[in-house]
């Protein structure tokens, strides 16, 4: 399997000074996906941004894993609601023009 787009999980942990167990927990919570190649854990480029965000939430803001899990769900909902607001604003604009 190609590993060009993958970052060794250990490298990530060294770079960000986080425990490997932390990203394993995140995977257990279903918050990130870890790619395993020949029993070695990698993080894909697409997952990197999200993982960085979760690291910040945990280490910078002292939010535990349950909190991060809840926040991740709420942020997704917020994203959906923001899109809905835009859509409703545009719809309202249509009636205001008539």
């Amino acid at each position, binding site marked *: 399997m190609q590993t060009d787009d993958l970052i060794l999980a250990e490298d990530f942990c060294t770079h*960000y*000074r986080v425990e490997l167990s932390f990203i394993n927990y995140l995977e257990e919570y279903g918050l990130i996906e870890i790619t395993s190649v020949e029993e070695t854990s990698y993080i894909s480029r697409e997952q990197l*941004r999200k993982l*960085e*965000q979760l690291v*910040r*939430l945990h*280490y*910078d*803001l*002292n*939010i535990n894993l349950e909190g991060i899990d809840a*926040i991740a769900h709420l*942020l997704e909902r*917020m*994203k959906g609601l*923001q*899109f809905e607001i*835009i*859509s409703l*604003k*545009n*719809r309202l*604009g*249509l009636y205001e*023009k*008539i």
Partner: protein
Amino acid sequence: MEFIDYYKVLGIEKNASESDIKSAYRKLARKFHPDLNPNDKEANKKFQQINEANEVLSDPEKRKKYDTYGGDWKHAEEFEKAQQSQSRQESNSGSYSFSGSDFGSGFSDFFSSMFGQSEAKSSGRHAKYRGEDYNAELHLTLEEAYTTHKQTLTVNGKNIRITIPAGVENGQVIKLKGHGGSGINEGPNGDLYITFVIADHAIYKRRADDLYISIDIDLYTAILGGEVMLDTLSGKIKLKVNPETQSGTKIRLKGKGFPVYKNEGQFGDLYVTYSVKIPTNLTERQKELFRELSQS
């Protein structure tokens, strides 16, 4: 020069302990952190201030200088040297400003602690800072938003070529990863957020993926039926008008509306409302015929 009271920013007293500062910072950071407030410029600005305040007040040496020199604490050493060399008799310690200073652009410089290079801590995870996020608006016509196309944007002198998928909404924001400000100390670059502003169209109204248009038909076509040509955003189409069509009749043309965002080949519907136009400048003969009709 505007003075920012870091104690006020963190909501603490001047005699706050280190743990008070840490606790206040964490509480406010959780409230205003950009990860928890996406696309919120105000929260972002507030977070920068909180960070700045924490960076100064959590470092005993910086805090001491800040308490002594206020807004000009960063230049305390220069100031002290200048004082010694000039053997000035009076001391300005305890004052939040001193006259005749040429200390640059003031407190806005303090934001460099977040986005600049001078004040970043040299050790620990916090030494790497993500670059600033940029926001931009991209104005499109309805026709442009109808088709997937490429556009070149110039952001801070750099040309960025982006693909705009058909069906973008007015007000929709897309994120271009890594096209914001440069990261600090090998930190990642910020992102570029582009808000699409789609201008109103002279003929078509858009509601999500559906399009609305009102077209005029003459009285005779409305009564007897016929055909009318309609210019859609994807070309001309021929519409069959049923006999005895009333003014205000609305018909739906399935799949002739706006493209569905990131769903290639899928389109909304086009709603056409007929507006029957009564003929004007009738000849005597035409009027006579209408009289006959009215009596029949």
